[in-house]
């Protein structure tokens, strides 16, 4: 069994505590679940059935997070498994200072980031950071048939476009826009500057805009 230590309190790059995030934001992203507190208490006491209840409450969110960050089903399942094994080892240290789901999801993010570091993949691509790209220049949308995307994106199209992003862009986009982390938290997790996180997010959104416009144009031509 792997021994990745990716708990919120002991990751390699110390992120800001989840508690630093506004409570309302945490509640919006991670609303309380009925029966969760009881299951946590029993699981902390070593009750396996209660741990399974917690798994069933959170498996979809943790797996979806891993899948969006990695874009690979097998890796996402492997790291979902690792995240819950981490949870089992660390659940006794959960004090309830933040929402349980916030704590667990931070653990899952750290498991994914640790996995990518072990694979030797840069979490923020040097190429994406330094080389001027299409996203860097001013946009000239002269002559396009429909000036804005508003109302034209469905969930499946957006999910597909997110998976087409380069890994560095996708990482920051998922953490910020989907999971709701702040730039200072992302910078801490990825080991980059806050400005770099903002820049990567902006480029990710710009790339998504291009992808989504191509998709919308394709549908209009069909």
């Amino acid at each position, binding site marked *: *069994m792997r021994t990745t230590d990716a708990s919120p309190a002991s990751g390699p790059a110390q992120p800001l505590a989840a508690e630093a995030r506004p409570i309302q934001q945490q509640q919006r992203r991670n609303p309380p679940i009925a029966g969760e507190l009881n299951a946590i208490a029993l*699981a*902390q*006491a*070593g009750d*396996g059935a209660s*741990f*399974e209840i917690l*798994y069933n409450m959170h*498996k*979809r*969110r943790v*797996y*979806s*997070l891993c*899948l969006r960050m990695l874009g690979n089903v097998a890796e*996402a*399942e492997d790291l*979902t*498994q690792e995240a*819950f*094994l981490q949870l*089992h*080892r*660390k*659940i*006794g*240290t959960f004090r309830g200072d933040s929402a349980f789901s916030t704590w667990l999801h931070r653990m899952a993010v750290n498991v994914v980031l640790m996995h990518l570091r072990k694979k030797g993949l840069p979490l923020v691509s040097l190429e994406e950071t330094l080389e001027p790209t299409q996203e860097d*220049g*001013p*946009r*000239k*949308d*002269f002559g396009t048939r429909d*000036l*804005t*995307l*508003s109302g034209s*994106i469905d*969930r499946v199209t*957006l*999910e597909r476009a*997110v998976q087409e992003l380069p890994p560095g862009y996708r990482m920051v*986009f998922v953490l910020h*826009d*989907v999971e*709701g982390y702040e*730039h200072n938290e992302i910078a801490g997790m990825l080991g980059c500057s806050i400005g770099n996180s*903002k*820049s990567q*997010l*902006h480029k990710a*959104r*710009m790339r*998504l*805009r291009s992808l*989504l416009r191509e998709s919308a144009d394709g549908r209009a031509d069909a």
Partner: protein
Amino acid sequence: MTMTTNTPQECSEFQQQLPDFFDSGGDRIEHPHLNTCANCSALVRDLNYIATQAKLLMPIHDPSPAVWENISHALGKEPTARRASEDDGAP
């Protein structure tokens, strides 16, 4: 008010600052350039729209049953949560 297309340099200067504008202004960016540039206005609307839609993405995928089977199998070999937290020095 007439929306025109500004010079590429004006657009470039505005767009270089966009990451900071989004970070400080959220979804309500107010800048004089947006009053006169249709393209940059459309760009800001699109980027806001993408960010808004991303927040609505829900977790929709479930892991296969094999994931829990593997976890359950592994937990059979692990110490209990209570013992693990005692090992970590937690009260």
